[in-house]
């Protein structure tokens, strides 16, 4: 029997409704359909909470698809974490999982298949200018279906890959790889009225590639900006990074001069603790420089022991979700 349709957003909490206010009409319509397709009230509630936690329509789409075939008990088990069953998780992970069923789902090993995986969140500044319907617009460059950005960048189809605009267009095309939900990727409001993003949110640059590369090893990474408005402080994320490194998992970071200015990628390889002090070994992937850095120097955000002195701080971090180990 087809489930009873849900009228509008009657069942959506006030918090989720406020999030939905920032979505465009197509994303709202997609969410309505996801609610209608959910087989029971519990799954609707999980979707509702995932919206309230700040996930995008694309992520919701993948999450709903992953839940749909599950029974009530299975869905509940996969989206909730108890202290007794999660001794390896940090307190911040447990608290986040309590409020965010999608996060709990991925934390417990739930997979959003590549075809359903959330599209990378691209900052508004990386998306192409979209003129209003009345304004004349030139035809968009067409991209092939490959996910290899290099292939796209090398296409001589009327734009220069080194041109900043080309990078923006490439990023925009990548953001639309989630099925047909071209307009489901929410466009954040801009300007002074824009709400601050929730902690841990923000555009992902490397998360999809890391997860693609390390999926076979049972490791999933979650990327976030550091030290920016509404973002976690470096001190907070480095304690999680230390835990991951002690478990043998590398931690990827972007380095730059200021929060939000990601210039280079580097990899924390290991951590050593002596008393209360820690030292991290950091490897710059492109320059192939490697250095041990005292935690105090890292947290001072004034200089890193690499040849490029302008990139003096961590601006972004991808932490592994501890599963499969």
């Amino acid at each position, binding site marked *: 029997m087809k489930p009873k349709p849900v009228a509008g957003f009657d069942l959506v909490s006030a918090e989720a409704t406020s999030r939905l206010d920032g979505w465009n009409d197509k994303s709202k319509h997609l969410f309505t359909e996801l609610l209608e397709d959910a087989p029971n009230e519990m799954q609707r509630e999980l979707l509702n909470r995932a919206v309230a936690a700040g996930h995008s329509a694309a992520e919701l789409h993948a999450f709903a698809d992953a839940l749909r075939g599950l029974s009530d008990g299975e869905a509940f088990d996969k989206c909730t974490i108890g202290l007794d069953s999660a001794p390896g998780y940090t307190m911040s992970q447990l608290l986040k999982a309590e409020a965010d069923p999608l996060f709990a789902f991925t934390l417990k090993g739930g997979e959003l298949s590549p075809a359903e995986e959330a599209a990378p969140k691209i900052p508004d500044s990386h998306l192409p200018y979209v003129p209003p319907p009345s304004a004349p617009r030139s035809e968009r460059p067409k991209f092939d279906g490959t996910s*290899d*950005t*290099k292939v796209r*960048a090398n296409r001589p189809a009327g734009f220069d890959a080194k041109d900043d605009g080309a*990078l923006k267009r490439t*990023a925009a095309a990548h953001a639309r790889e989630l099925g047909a939900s071209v307009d489901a990727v929410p466009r954040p409001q801009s300007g002074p009225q824009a709400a601050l993003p929730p902690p841990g949110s923000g555009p992902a*640059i*490397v998360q999809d*590639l*890391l997860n*693609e*590369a*390390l999926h*076979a*090893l049972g*490791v999933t990474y979650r990327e976030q900006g550091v030290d920016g408005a509404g973002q976690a402080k470096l001190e907070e994320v480095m304690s999680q990074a230390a835990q991951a490194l002690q478990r*043998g*998992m*590398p931690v*990827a970071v*972007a380095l730059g001069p200021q929060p939000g200015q*990601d*210039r*280079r*990628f*580097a*990899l924390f*390889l*290991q951590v*050593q603790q002596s008393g209360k002090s820690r030292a991290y*070994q950091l*490897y710059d*992937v*492109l*320059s192939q420089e*490697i250095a041990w850095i005292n935690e105090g120097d890292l947290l001072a955000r004034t200089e890193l022991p690499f040849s*490029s002195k302008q*990139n003096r701080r961590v601006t972004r971090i991808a932490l592994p979700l501890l599963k499969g180990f």
Partner: protein
Amino acid sequence: MASLPPKAQPAAPFANRELNGEVLLEELSDLRNAQVPQRQLNDCASGLRELAGVRASEAATRIKQLATARFAQQPAMASLLVRWAGRLKSDVDVPLLLGHFERLAMVSGAMSALRRASERLPKGGRG
């Protein structure tokens, strides 16, 4: 009261601070030059996971078997396994060896992802 026996110390190669730093990077460079694919590193890490809890002598034998049985077509990978198997001296070395190969696979995958992701940064990540 009888004193506890002294805790076994890892053999020198496993106690090296750079085991999972510079040593690992050098090994990765060799494997990359030998064009060992990421899938083989993942297979190796998965295969070695089965040795958790196994004694050093048995682990050494099984690692050599793994090298010849599964990586016969990849001499660089096989020789790396055999070299490390020969360095196992006591049981405390076994989890360190497994961890090393696990990291080898993860760091290789992460580096590959970061190289690709650098293309998304200004100046190709060389800024």
